[in-house]
């Protein structure tokens, strides 16, 4: 794939082209092996499939018509419970920062999105950042109608500048595939870009803490070494190749979909944080990060203490 095409493809999805991400060939050894070429070709196909980031693709009428289906899944299958939505400012841009659980089936995102849309109405613009691979999967165009855009700083800026609420999961693929026995741990992997984004856009941060997602399958390992070995980070921005026990595959490598167990999902929305009001005119990013981690971990510990049994809740 010519480099010019790659750069254009990346820019249109809100990603600044970087050598590491957008031109794997630039940093990869110029191996001519068939496997290497096949990998690079596949990475190119995936990149070309990432849809153009267009906030206008969010369709409130579509969301409204689909709400009953997702309400059913959320209420009957996951027995979802979302508390504290009143902590989210009624108007204006806001950065919702969540801990992510449940593998690629993202049950916590679904439960929260249904609750947000019914609470504030589908008229309130609400976007979610998702991994490129999710948006490039065949047959998965509907998340874009729900307001899901590729995870990138530019797309996040665009969403917040438009006055929308934006849900981000800083832990992303790293956190969502953590082993089930670490289910009650908030783990953003040290990613702090969301704090710089909130400061730059001058928007409040609302922490969203969820529990139960990591009980929808038995997540065994993130498979970081395997991902590194297969150059998935370089080619697909994937730091993990998770291995789990889940339905219907039993052993699920890569998690390209599974049937989640009906674990109870409980989500607590914490009070909004005005970074300048709480940390002064020039907040220290590390200090904000540590504070948020403590806050969210305390909330998660409290939710964990309420649970009596795995899956049942």
């Amino acid at each position, binding site marked *: 794939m010519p480099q010019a095409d790659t750069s254009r493809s990346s820019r249109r999805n809100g990603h600044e082209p970087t050598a590491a991400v957008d031109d794997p060939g630039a940093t990869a050894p110029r191996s001519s092996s068939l496997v290497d070429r096949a990998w690079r070709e596949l990475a190119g196909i995936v990149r070309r499939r990432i849809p153009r980031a267009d906030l206008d693709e969010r369709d409130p009428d579509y969301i409204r018509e689909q709400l009953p289906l997702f309400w059913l899944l959320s*209420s009957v299958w996951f027995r979802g419970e*979302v508390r504290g939505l009143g902590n989210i400012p009624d108007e204006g841009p806001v950065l919702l920062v969540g801990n992510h659980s449940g593998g690629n089936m993202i049950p916590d995102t679904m439960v929260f999105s249904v609750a947000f849309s*019914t609470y504030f*109405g589908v008229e309130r613009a609400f976007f979610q950042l998702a991994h490129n691979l999710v948006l490039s999967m065949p047959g998965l165009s509907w998340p874009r109608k729900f307001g899901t855009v590729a995870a990138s700083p530019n797309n996040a800026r665009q969403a917040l500048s438009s006055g929308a609420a934006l849900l981000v999961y800083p832990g992303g693929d790293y956190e969502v595939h953590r082993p089930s026995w670490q289910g009650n741990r908030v783990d953003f992997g040290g990613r702090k870009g969301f704090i710089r984004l909130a400061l730059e856009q001058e928007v409040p941060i609302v922490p969203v803490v969820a529990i139960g997602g990591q009980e929808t399958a038995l997540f065994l390992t993130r498979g970081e070494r395997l991902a590194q070995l297969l150059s998935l980070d370089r080619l697909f921005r994937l730091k993990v190749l998770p291995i789990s026990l889940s339905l219907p595959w039993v052993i699920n490598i890569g998690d390209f979909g599974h049937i989640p167990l009906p674990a109870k999902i409980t989500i607590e929305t914490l009070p909004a944080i005005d970074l300048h009001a709480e940390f002064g005119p020039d907040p220290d990013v590390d200090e904000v990060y540590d504070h948020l981690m403590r806050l969210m971990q305390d909330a998660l510990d409290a939710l964990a203490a309420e649970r009596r049994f795995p899956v049942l809740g």
Partner: protein
Amino acid sequence: MRIKDDIVVAAQVEAVWAIISDPERVLSYMSGVTRWEIAGDVRTGLGARYRMLFRIGAAEVGGLIEIVEFSAPLEFAWTSVTGLDQRGRWRLRPAPGGRARVELRLAYGIAGAGISGWVAEHIAAPSVSGHVRQTLRQLGRLIEQEQLRERAARRRALLG
């Protein structure tokens, strides 16, 4: 989906009307309501708008509603402006013995939601029905307690 229930309370129609037509008293008897706010300048009567939410399953549903019929002291009806499609009606009629029959009707759904909408309406029905029944019971208790307090106050005034 349509839900309807009624109750007979030991009070005049006017006494019941004074409570149900006062938007500031809604939270004292309406079951399942998690948010209730007056939206706009008209506090009560035709054209008054309220933002209301009530918990059904995993979500708080509702939206903006508007009073579209207001015939004091016998009935008023509302319809949704945004959010869940809904119509509701309070209907008061005199009953024998100086009492009042209070009826609450609620119809809800999501237009265009297809089979999932139909299933969701039916799954939610027992919960909505329970809230309607509980609302009527709580309203009945509230009115009868007020009647008792008023009678006691009158007795005290006569004795004093």
